[in-house]
């Protein structure tokens, strides 16, 4: 009897909530983070197959242009620097998240998104330049492998930018809610993972290609 009364009183005092409480309770112990990590590992295997394809086709120029004629290493260096700085700003957002500073989280996330957008913009500029020169994906096996590998990475970065934009809206509406914290941790893992993939891209595609 006492318990019932306490229960009713608690219900009456509880302010209305407009998000799903049970969803968060289902993820005690960081199960979401481990699951997301395993997704990233499977994504790494996807890139492994693309790297393998690119490697196998890396000398099949079919009389077409070779990497030394195609690539502007200055542009690649700029893009690499942009992505590396964005990894740092993403980390700064995570430190702000840990400290519970909403404004700093949003600021650093916005900077990260801008850097990501700049990266994609430069990459699209490079692609457009290549295609204008006649170095299209259809030109040779090498170029098919190149556009598939680098394009898939660029698509991931684009989706990462969209994800950051969604999180900025979420943070504006809900603040540093536990659900948002979890999402931001997954987002940061995704972003850093893309930077790791880019290390492989600039090393094996661009630098070794030009050598």
């Amino acid at each position, binding site marked *: 009897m006492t318990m019932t009364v306490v*229960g009713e009183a608690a219900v009456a005092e509880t302010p209305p909530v407009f998000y799903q409480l049970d969803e968060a309770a289902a993820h005690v*112990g960081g199960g979401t*983070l481990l699951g997301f990590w395993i997704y990233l*590992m499977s994504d790494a295997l996807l890139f492994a197959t693309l790297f393998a394809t690119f490697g196998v086709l890396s000398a099949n120029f079919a009389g077409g242009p070779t990497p030394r004629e195609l690539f502007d290493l200055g542009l690649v260096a700029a893009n690499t620097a942009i992505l590396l700085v964005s*990894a*740092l700003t993403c980390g700064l957002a995570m430190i702000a998240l840990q400290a519970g500073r909403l404004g700093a989280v949003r600021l650093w996330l916005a900077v990260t998104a801008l850097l990501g957008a700049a990266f994609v913009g430069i990459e699209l500029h490079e692609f457009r330049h290549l295609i204008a020169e006649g170095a299209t994906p259809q030109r040779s096996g090498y170029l098919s492998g190149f556009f598939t590998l680098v394009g898939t990475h660029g698509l991931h970065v684009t989706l990462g930018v969209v994800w950051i934009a969604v999180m900025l809206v979420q943070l504006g509406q809900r603040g540093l809610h536990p659900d948002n914290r979890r999402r931001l941790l997954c987002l940061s893992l995704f972003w850093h*993972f893309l930077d790791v993939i880019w*290390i492989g891209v600039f090393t094996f595609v661009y630098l070794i290609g030009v050598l």
Partner: protein
Amino acid sequence: MTASSTAAHQAPDATHGQAHGEVHGWAHEEGEEAVHFTLRTYLTGFVAAAVLTAIPFWIVMARPIASTAASVAVIVALAVAQILVHTFAFLHVNARAQGGWTLVSYVFTAVLLVITVGGSLWIMYHLNSNMMPGMMDPSQAP
């Protein structure tokens, strides 16, 4: 009454524990010493990654190493080093996170990656070298 007060007492703790676990999430489930999101970790990782990026670009643009094979070996070694820096400084992989499953799945993925890429290249280059036009003897063709 005892039951309800215990439940009421536990609820905030559970919530706090979860929120705390999510914030540091990646780092640990037991022990406070493993706080990973420090500015120092990120800055150290960033500087190391920047150096490990700058050196291979310099090697390719300035060509201080005459041998192409040696240049490739150095560049690949630097890339592996940079991947490890990113893994520990930015992705916070360690043996404690998620009871070790993060590290186990990472190593497993690395093994599969090496087999996939290395195996594909090995087999396809082997096929290529056996099928070069100069090596084909038409008289022995079936």
